């Protein structure tokens, strides 16, 4: 207790991990996120093995240039995030705020671009159930340019990228909260747990996208 501590330091609590609670908690939570994406990505791998013909060559349906730009954006946001953390460590409030705002903005842009990508895909006739009946892609498939059915391709594509987008959205919301706290000067050089913890989440979501971009768009 604080009073007793004046005379003698209190006995040490047993510490199992050499990190503070919030950080440990976030890592633990990320463990469950790994398993969640395992369910989605694992299913994708298995389904694709079982039915390789439902997939097209990279770029045939999906828009690679725009997602490549989006990938770059997310990498940038990870960089700004880690810069924000470095600024917090240095107690540099100005740069902390700057980088956090940048992260929020880039993250939101990522979600926006993804929304745009989705509308374009739907417009061309690619939906979670496969081709949209009567859509442009369905006609090309009828003409033999594309696989006859991409039902399972659409299912996995939208579910995986959609849930990733959902995670980014959640991350942006939390990041706005952290930014707000930063503007109120809550993070000091000695205690900036919030920044580090949200950073871990953010980088994790970036990491998932790195995997997704490769296996969904490029393979």
């Amino acid at each position, binding site marked *: *207790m*604080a009073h*007793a*501590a004046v005379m*003698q*330091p*209190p*006995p*040490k*609590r*047993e*510490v*199992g*991990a050499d990190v*503070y*609670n*919030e950080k*440990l*908690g976030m890592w*633990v*939570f990320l*463990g*469950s*996120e790994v*398993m*969640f*994406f*395992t*369910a*989605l990505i*694992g*299913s994708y791998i*298995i*389904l694709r093995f*079982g*039915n390789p013909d*439902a997939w097209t060559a990279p770029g045939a349906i999906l828009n690679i240039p725009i997602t490549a730009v989006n990938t770059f954006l997310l990498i940038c946001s990870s960089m700004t995030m880690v810069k924000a953390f470095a600024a917090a460590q240095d107690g540099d409030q100005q740069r902390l705020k700057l980088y956090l705002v940048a992260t929020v903005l880039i993250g939101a842009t990522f979600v926006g671009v993804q929304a745009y990508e989705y509308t374009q895909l739907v417009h061309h006739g690619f*939906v*979670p*159930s*496969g081709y949209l009946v009567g859509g442009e892609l369905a006609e090309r498939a009828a003409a033999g340019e594309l696989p006859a*059915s991409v*039902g*399972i*391709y*659409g*299912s*996995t594509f*939208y*579910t995986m990228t959609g*849930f990733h987008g959902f995670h980014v959205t959640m991350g942006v919301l939390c990041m706005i909260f952290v930014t707000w706290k930063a503007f109120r000067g809550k993070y000091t050089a*000695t*205690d900036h747990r919030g920044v580090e913890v949200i950073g871990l989440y953010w980088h994790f979501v970036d990491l998932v996208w790195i995997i997704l971009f490769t296996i969904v768009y490029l393979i």
Partner: protein
Amino acid sequence: MATAAVPLDEATHAGSHEISFIRKYIFSTDHKIIGIQFMLMSLIFLLVGGILAAMIRWQLGFPNTSMPGGGILPETMAPGGILLPEFYNSLVTMHGTIMVFFAIMPLLVGVYGNYLIPLKLGAPDMAFPRLNMASFWVAVPAGILMMAGFFVEGGHAAAGWTVYAPLSADPEWTGVSTGQQLWLLSLAVLGLSSILGATNYITTVVNMRAPGMTWFRMPLSIWALFVTSILVLLAIPILSGAAIMLFFDQTIGTHFFDALDGGQPLLWQHLFWYFGHPEVYILILPAMGFVSDIIANASRKPIFGYHSMVYAIIAIGFLGWVVWGHHMFQSGMNPTLGTTFMISTLFIAVPSAIKTFNWMGTMWRGNIRFHVPMLHATAFVAMFVIGGLSGVFMASNTFDIYIHDTYFIVAHIHYVLFGGSLFAIFGAITFWYPKMFGRMMNPFWGKVHFVLTFIFFNLAFFPMHSLGVAGHMRRIYDPTQYEFLQPLQPVNTFISISVFLLVLSQLPFALNFILSWFNGAKAPDNPWDDNGLEWSVPSPPPHGNFKETPTVYRGAYEFSSPLVEEDFLPQNKKLDSDPEPAQAAGH
């Protein structure tokens, strides 16, 4: 910040403020209140699950006769009190679902994970009290969603608690659409609650142990809850992911489990059981932990082979991940894979044997006090062994050909889940009731409840083995349809009558539980002469738990130690021979 301890001590002080009723009892962040909230919720669900079971048994024991009181059910469920087959399927599905996800799992993990972890580890609260509150208030809407399914058009989910696709994926096959979707949503939401809870428990166990509470001084109940939390953390998201995919198959036309368009029905089974088998260990490990604590306490002896008990828990937790295929031996899965899964499954008998015999070793040369918790704990060992041994029959892929999807499985389920988990829960409730509510439960009615439950449980479920051996399939609405099952009908009727008596036998428990809350004898701090830290604080403990962070000098099972006069030696009692634990580096 120099050490992790600073914010904790701050939390201790928060307790001294006056807080409003709502903050104190409804949106409380106190782990003890949250534990009690989980308890009330899950006991209500236990009751619901029990009533559904009684309806199932009515139909099986007295097929196509009007169920007493069945007249109040709407035409779509039971016209004239006679259950419809589609309603029967919903009953079975919802019985399994509610019992597993909304009764036993929250009772074990939600209630005791919350209540015991901080208290037994000497922490003022969970690592993240607000997250803890969120975890309960996320579970409530999940429960509401689940119950809502009974009232929607088309009826509730009817594809079994295992919701095998494609039966569950397309309303065309069962006529159920909204019900199944609510079911999936509810489990996804409940999953979030469980994951938040598990995150909290793991962090608390790793980082918030009192000074001197080293890993190998932790009580086995905490070890079990810790390993269970890891299983929850890693298994539940698989279910959430799978449930979401199935939900999309139902709603937005994806094809994950639809064989006609590139999907794979077996993928559902793999995902479900990859979650599902760890899940069944989630349902037994905490029970094993509680039973270990209770048996050592009642026998007045240190737990036999503490270290091997810990390793056995870890081994079961680990092996639980590599056996899921034993539910799929006859599913058309690769037969070579089947043999691999058989071997890994059989090996779970080894850590289970260690646990069983170590419990017996604990009783050996003890001085056993048969208080009500101990009665339930002994019943746990006796019944879990039956369930575990019946598991060995089906672990043999060869013999599983014959008993897969028969009542042998149903007998197994109930011996491990009722005979195992639920007996342990009864034991845990009576053991920690004084701490939770500050009152003792009535021991006489406790014994009456125990004896009746034990007898009727066995009369109800033991004969199910013989039904299974005779080839009686599970999940069938009317067994008299098959000639080869007709001679077994008297057994079914016998089981049903035993079940009705079993359900009635729960009455003394329910009354005892409710009445003791108001009228029970005042509980002393340490009614069972136990060593755990929770018994060193008042019953019920104040907000913040410990006036001063306790220091731990030994493991939790130092009963009948020659060092002291009395036959127990609390973990935080300092003897002259005990060295002080290391000091913090100072602030």
